[in-house]
């Protein structure tokens, strides 16, 4: 943008990528974008992914999701929204589930990441993977790795006694039931809407009755 634009032109000029509510707000974001573009830098990041110690040179703006998908060719982790709203990118970091699109890879230097590829393989399926197939807990399959990783996280959270929004008694041991499961899995959207089958699959592995 040239510096001699009048205020009127300035206000009419919008940074195109910004889904702007106000025109002046867009310009602010355009300026920020310039700063960001200049600030980009590569940083070596050490990650332990599915048990493998790796060092990758990553643009510091790279999300954990894009590090996995674009740099490590681990495309089982899916990009559904890239803004933490759908759960398709769920992985385990140090055993806890996380939306990998909402975190930068460089923030996880030295940490252990588990992706769907590390949970089980076609020859040796994890019980959750086997149950998803048996209960038809998916259709298009795009949200599926996230659902399964999220389910793995849920089972661990319950075993650690972590309560949820629908846990009635915060002092008693947490017991998994359908209501708990649905609440805890609600960050993982399935547009094919395989929800009843997903719940059946996880219930099967968790070992409780509906």
């Amino acid at each position, binding site marked *: *943008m040239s510096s001699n634009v009048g205020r009127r032109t300035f206000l009419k000029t919008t940074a195109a990528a910004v*889904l702007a509510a106000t025109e002046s707000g*867009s310009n602010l974001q355009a300026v920020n974008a310039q700063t960001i573009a200049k600030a*980009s830098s590569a940083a070596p990041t050490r990650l332990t992914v599915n048990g493998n110690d790796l060092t990758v040179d990553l643009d510091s703006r790279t999300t954990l999701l894009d590090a996995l998908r674009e740099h490590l060719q681990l495309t089982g982790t899916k990009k559904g929204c890239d803004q933490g709203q759908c759960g398709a990118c769920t992985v385990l970091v140090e055993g806890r589930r996380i939306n990998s699109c909402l975190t930068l890879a460089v923030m996880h230097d030295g940490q252990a990441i588990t992706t*769907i590829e590390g949970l089980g393989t076609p020859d040796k399926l994890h019980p959750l993977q086997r149950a998803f197939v048996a209960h038809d807990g998916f259709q*298009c399959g795009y949200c599926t790795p996230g659902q399964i990783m999220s389910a793995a996280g849920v089972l661990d959270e319950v075993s650690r006694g972590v309560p949820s929004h629908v846990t009635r008694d915060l002092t008693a041991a947490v017991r998994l039931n359908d209501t708990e499961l649905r609440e805890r899995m609600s960050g*993982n959207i399935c547009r094919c809407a395989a929800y*009843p089958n997903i719940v059946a699959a996880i219930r099967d592995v968790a070992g409780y009755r509906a």
Partner: protein
Amino acid sequence: MIGQALDRRDGTFKVTGRAAYSYERQDAGQAAHGYMVGAAVAKGRIVAIDVAMARRAPGVALVMTHQDVAPQGARDGTVAEQFARPWPVLIGDEVAFFGQPVALVVADTFEQARAAAALVVVTYATDAGAFDLAAHRGEAYTPKMAAAGFPADTCFGDLDRAMADTPVNVDVTYTTPHHFAQPMEPAACLASWNGDDLAVCVSVQGIAACRNALARTLLIAPERVHVDAAFVGGGFGSKLRLHEETVLAALASRRLQRPVKVAHTRRQVFNIAGHGPEMIHRVRLAARRDGTLLGIGHDVNMQGARREEYVEQAATVLRSLYAAPHRLTRHRVTNLDLNLGEAVRGPGEAPGLLAVESAMDELAIALDLDPIELRIRNEPDLDPERRVSFSGRRLVECMREGASRFGWAARPRRPASRREGDVLVGFGMSASIRACFQGATAAIVRMEPDGRVIVKSDMTDIGTGTLTILAQVAAGALNVPIAGVSVQLARSDLPVSAGSGGSWGASNTCNAVYRACDDLRRKVMGPASLWGREADLASEVARRFPDGVEGEGILPGMQDDPNYKEYSVNTYGANFAEVGVDVTTGEVRLRRMLGVFCAGRIVNPKTARSQVIGGMIWGVGAALHEAAHVDPRYGNFVNGDLAEYLVPVHADIPAIDAIMLDDFDDKANPLGIKGVGELGICGSGAAVANAVFNATGIRVRDFPITIEKLLPGLPVR
């Protein structure tokens, strides 16, 4: 094998993350990343577009705008097949809708492309746009046709007179909102050129349509376009048409002579991928005291766009659902400065039945009649408008079976009469109908000398189960173990199908594969009269066909199939829902839901049930959650992401079940199969809406039924 509840064949790939969707394909080597820049105004002109900063940004290989884009085929509404029409991008300086791509930035990495995209500076001359359907409804025009070949209007008798002459009638207006497919995989394309040949890994529902549309857009021969859609992360209508990401990837890849991949961001899906348009429905029902309908009418006024006509067939649902001598159905279109509407799962039926089946519930209340009994009393003997016989109409059976299984008799007879603590409880039901279509489809089945069978079709499996059911059909038809059948799909070097969309994929392709098996067997075993010892087929092939043998099967389109002229071919169902409404907060919770469906022979009960349940849940979303809202000042979808455009999540969905009646429709096709991809969403939302009325006594006619629409009418605590 047909009828067995087998696991999905691609299940192991999908649950282990080994299924590679288009953006993830490594076939072409390292691809550059393209990022689309969308218009920040809804109507106007690009006065200036400054790409200098973006071009200088690190890693940037290309910034493409309307000023330097290659010539493309013009939009052409005369191409008969809608999905094969050219889809030119970056053409000229005109902006026709908010988010319309105005530039593509290509860089080595995604981060570089995204950052550089924010440096493209566009100056617009903004025009005042029309964005509000209700405000502009008076400007509606009468289209020549509705989508899918339906007449825009039908008229029998005199509805106005029937309304005047009958003692009980309903004349109500419903609105259904802008509705989005939003598959979990945003549309994406990886494009690469080899000389004059273009290869695209792309997320589409139909291979041949994509190939032809892309060839027409790029002004090259279709044979030069090679399409591969091995895995597609859902479509629901939004991947029927070619979209900007694919054309831009192809153009950029040609310019740069390197592979380029482009995906929609989720927000771009809301801007670019097409939506089911907002509609205003006037439904009129004129009845005698005993519930006999004398008149029915459905007037639909929907949003359109000037650049191309899309008339969703929403007013067609009543044309064959109920008997009545006086009938009127009409489609009107109000052009606004919004994106073009496109098919979203159950186009026509999904919004149409929300309105019609809610209005039928209103009539049942007015008559003080069981809504099932009302529907049974108006069951037609013949298709009421086409005056042809129905094939496989078992709607009454669906309703009775569902009523029995659901415990309909225990429903609250009076609205707002059952309260459990702070929760008002209600039951609702609705009827479902979905028209069946048949599209020309070819398939090849090959048997190798070692007995292995290969099924070939360009049909896609977008989560529908195609891979699994085609293997079932071939294994059954050739009497070979299913483990020895491999299925090749979704590439443009394979026999052309009609693609996935319109609930016709299973019936089209299964029949074509069955005929190919038949052809193969004739080639090996001679005329059918000589067959008998089935096990001999493989040994005959081994003995006499050292290079293997192929059979070819073709299913004609419905226009060439007399059955579709002589019969009214539809699928049917009945949905039942129980809801609880919190008397204080107005929150609606679905408690349970059941659908009973009649959809011909079910090839795989496991995958079919999943698809139908998924559709029913879409009905729940349509009734309670989903609406895209346009900002009347700027013409953008203000809630264009998955946090603000609400879709059902786990916590919204309790126990849901679907029952498929044991069925076979010999008029539909030789295998008796009809589709189930959209049947689940047809009418199911109205069952939920009617349950909300039964619980609260409040009739919300503006979908979805959200808290603020219920709160004013809820009883004081």
